[in-house]
Structure formats: C-alpha cells, structure tokens
C-alpha cells in the first residue's frame, strides 16, 4: 500500500512519534480530555452507546506524515462528514454545471435538518444540509443500488486507503426513523430535483451516513484534499484535483452546521463535522486534521474537536485568512528543528 520502502516508512512512523508536534498534540489531548460538557447525540439509540471519554486527535501532513494521539482507532459512524466527499463524487460524475442545477452553494443559517428549499430555484441550499446531501447522493451513478453503494465505498477507500463497513444497526435505525429525510426527498421529487428512485437513494444516503471510520481516517481524508485530491499516504488520486476547491470552499462556508459562520470567523479552517463526534478539517497544501469525541455542543459539533482545531489554528496561524506571524512555526514543530527543539 505504501509507496515508501519499509525502512523509510518505519523511520517516518517513529519520527512522527518523537516529533515535538506530537508532543504538542499530546498536551492538547491532556488539556481537553477533562472537558465533560455537552451531550452525546441521542436521536437514535445506537449513538447513545458511545463512551463520552473517547477522544482521538490525528494530524496527517500533505507529505504523508501521521501524528496520532488518543483513541485514533476507535470506530464510529461518519454521519454528515460523508456529505462533503459525496459532493466531490457528484462533481466528478456530472460536472459543476449539472450539479449546481440540483443543489446550491449558499449557507442556510437553518438547522441541518430543516425542510427548506430555495424558493426561486427549488434547489436545496447546499450539499452539507440533509436535503442537499440527499440530492447529491441521488447523483451517485450506477445501475443498481449495489453498484452505487460500491462506487461510494470505493471512493472512501481511495481517501482513507482501507476498506470500510456499514454499521447495519445504525443504518436500519436511521432508515426506520428517517421520516423527516423522507419528507424532504419527496418534496424535492415534487420539484423534479431528484430522480424517481427515492427509496433507493434514501437507503444509499442512510448507508453512507452509517459507514464506520476512525479519527485517523478523517485526518487522511482531509490530508488528501489538502494534497490536491491525492492520498498522501497511498499516493492514490481520490478526487479530480479540479474539484478539490469546490469541496473545501463549501466545508468553509457550510461545514459546521449553523455554527459555520462563527467557525469561519474564529477558526478559519475548512471543516466538516458529524453528530457522532467526528470533525475533519483541511489546511490546503499543508495538512488534514481528524478529531473524534462524541460530546457535542448545541449546534451538533464536537466540543473537544472544536477546541483542538481552535488551538491548532491559533498557535500555528492556520486560519485561511491569517496574515500575522504565528506563535509557532509549523515546519519547526513537525521536523523538531528551530525553537521547537525544546525538552
């Protein structure tokens, strides 16, 4: 799987362990693991089984170095994070013009599950809210549901470098309680915004949300976007580089539910969160961040994950619009050189 020799790949994994940057992440983990506010998502019973103490932080650089702290192997369902990547798949299959006829790119300021379409165009506002995500999932091509699901799973495999399973109890639970999403799908069908295979598309949508990932997967996925769509660990192209900026810009404006505006202002790293507690965040050209902690704030974003992204943004000047000299120079901390070489 790796493009590196065994010695170099082992050496890289060890220098990632000894790097001051991992020590920095370890300190963040220590600092924020005591946060016990917020609540675990409970709209389906399966999600309430999460352990509130789970907390993983992973950062993967655009040149493929992996820094892990805490519960980075713990699996959870990807939920809304899938939406950003499925949008990329739809763009590859149909191009910008067609996709934009089916789903807009405006932030809503409404809750993620609001039943609302743009009055002028009948489109859902953007691919990161449920209605827009159902419309983009509808654009996944294939003759059968099996083929469409395979296309979806193959795409995630290119992003993460490994096979993914669907959590069947979560899928069935989402499906049996997803009246709101069904209502949205039928509303969009009424306006001709989705195909007539509504049940199949909804199944696919619930399956896509129920796919199992871990914090490391989320970091490799965002590092892939940061690296122009090419997975920096496996060197496989996961998304046509022309569409990378489409995905990242919508993550910036719409990725954090109705907390997106404040996120863009305060943290400024394009990101997508999910109700199971994951966040994937992209610093273009530099790195991907994956965090997992199931305690959520009122907007549905992981509390500890927000703290981690906020600290990284502030300390290393990773806000997209930052023009000030940061406290810490990222390259020094990754390589253990300069001022970062402190014991």
């Amino acid at each position: 799987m790796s493009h590196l020799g065994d010695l170099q790949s082992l050496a890289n994994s060890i220098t990632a362990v000894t790097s001051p940057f991992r020590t920095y992440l370890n300190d963040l983990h220590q600092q924020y693991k005591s946060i016990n506010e917020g609540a675990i998502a409970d709209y389906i019973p399966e999600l309430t089984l999460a352990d509130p103490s789970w907390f993983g932080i992973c950062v993967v650089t655009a040149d493929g170095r992996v820094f892990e702290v805490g519960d980075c192997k713990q699996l959870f369902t990807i939920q809304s994070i899938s939406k950003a990547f499925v949008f990329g798949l739809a763009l590859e299959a149909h191009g910008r013009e067609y996709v934009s006829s089916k789903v807009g790119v405006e932030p809503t300021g409404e809750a993620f599950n609001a039943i609302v379409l743009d009055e002028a165009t009948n489109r859902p506002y953007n691919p990161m809210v449920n209605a827009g995500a159902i419309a983009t999932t509808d654009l996944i091509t294939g003759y059968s549901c099996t083929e469409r699901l395979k296309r979806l799973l193959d795409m995630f495999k290119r992003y993460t470098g490994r096979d993914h399973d669907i959590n069947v109890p979560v899928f069935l639970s989402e499906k049996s309680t997803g009246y709101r999403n069904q209502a949205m799908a039928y509303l969009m069908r009424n306006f001709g915004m989705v195909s007539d295979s509504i049940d199949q598309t909804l199944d696919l949508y619930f399956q896509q949300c129920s796919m199992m990932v871990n914090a490391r997967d989320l970091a490799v996925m965002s590092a892939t976007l940061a690296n122009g769509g090419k997975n920096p660990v496996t060197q496989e192209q996961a998304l046509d580089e022309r569409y990378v900026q489409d995905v990242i810009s919508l993550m910036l404006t719409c990725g954090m539910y109705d907390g997106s505006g404040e996120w863009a202002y305060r943290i400024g790293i394009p990101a997508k969160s999910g109700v199971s507690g994951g966040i994937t965040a992209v610093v273009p050209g530099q790195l991907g961040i994956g965090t997992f902690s199931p305690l959520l704030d009122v907007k549905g974003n992981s509390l500890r994950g927000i703290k981690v992204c906020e600290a990284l943004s502030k300390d290393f000047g990773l806000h997209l619009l930052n023009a000030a000299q940061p406290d810490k120079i990222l390259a020094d901390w990754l390589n253990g050189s300069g001022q970062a070489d402190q014991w």
Partner: protein
Amino acid sequence: MPKVVSIHSYRGGTGKSNFTANLATTVALQGHRVAIVDTDLPSPGIHNLFCLEPEQVEKALNHYLWGEIPIEAVAYDVSANVGVNSGINGGGQLFLVPSSVKADDIARILKDGYDVKLMNDGFRHLVKALELDYLFIDTHPGLSKETFLSIAISHVLLLILRPDKQDYQGTAVTADVARQLRVRKMLLTINKVYSSLNVDALKQKVEETFGETVAGIFPLSEDVVQLASEGVFCVKYPEHSVSHEFQRVAKEIAEA
C-alpha cells in the same frame, strides 16, 4: 538545554551497559543532573552496576509502560551508590529507571508489546519532572522499536563497536538507520581494543569507514573486566587512563 544521549550497539557483548554506567556517572560527578533509562526490556542488567538489588525494585519501567505508575516514580536515586553526592559535588545527581528482571514481567512485555508513544512521552516527562541536564538511554542490542525510538529522539547517538568484522557490518547498518531517522549527531566508540593494535590507525580507519567521529577508544582491560558488573569503574579508579577516556567522551558530548 537538556541533552538526550542514546547508547547503542548492533551486537551484544560490546560492554554497552558498563560504558553507559561509567559515562553517566562521569557526567554526574561533574555536577550535572543525570538519569539513565534501561530500555533493554528483554534483558535488563545495568542496575547491577549501581548495586540496585531486584528486591529494592518494587516497580520498574515496565509498570510505567503498562500505565500503572508515573515514570518519575520508578526513577531510583543511585547517587549515593556511586559517590555522587549532591551536597559536596555541587548539585550532581544520578537516577536510574530500571527494567524489571522478573521473568513474568519480561514475558508480558514480549507477549503484549507496549505503546512506543508512551516510551517517548515518558522520556520527555522524566526530563521535566527531574529537571535533568542529561538523559542516557541504554538500549537492547540490535534493531528494535526501542532502538528506533531512542535514536530518533536523541541529540547524540553513541554507537559502540569492537574492532571486528561482524561489528563493522552491524554498525554500518545501524548508522544507515540512524541517518534515515535524521539523527542529529552520531559518535562512535571502539571498545575491547587489543593492546597490540595501533590505536591511531584504527581510529582513522573507523572514521573513514563510517564517516563519523570516533569519540573514544577503550582497551580490552583486565582492570575493567575484574570490576565489570560489580560497580562503576571510573568511581573506583578515577585516575586510570580508562576513566580519563570517559571524561574525553563526556566532553565531546557536552560540546555536541
């Protein structure tokens, strides 16, 4: 700034633990705060040189790696055992973090392994908690996770070799690995050198072969052999030429 020094040899029997004990003691006697971590989990031994008996070692590095105890709680102050007295010698102190010699504990490490990240975090924590000037890492011979980690983390890597072909080959492999790990500074020391060998020619040959500095050359010495595994040589014979050679190596490390 604290300095981390790893001592390594590709093959066993090079006198690595003896060398580590003497070097660390020499540095502590100069008034520095020093700790040695014995990461030779499969075959620990350096505690003997500091007269630390197994019954005194309730908990060891193993227990830290199993998450039972903070690492500073298994740092034993052995200053008094080697005549390093913080009162007299201006603040020097010597700690040892031993590995467990209990067969069950060794078996558990071999069977279950451990998280190499914890070893790294432990080193860094120990340096802070004990306010160390120097951390010496004694390693298991050959290449392993601990070796890779200790090489990657150290400011100075000391490779010990004997003047024979097997050690030359193995040291070349280790030096390649060390460069891949972007080691900051590599020094070589040659141990167990027969008195019949021309020391200057040997030094020149080894430096040319490996492209690294030879920091010290130690004879195959009966004096040292007699005391080996019973105490720290440089404490008992401070004026011996071997003790002077340790001081030279210590100086080289201080300047690295």
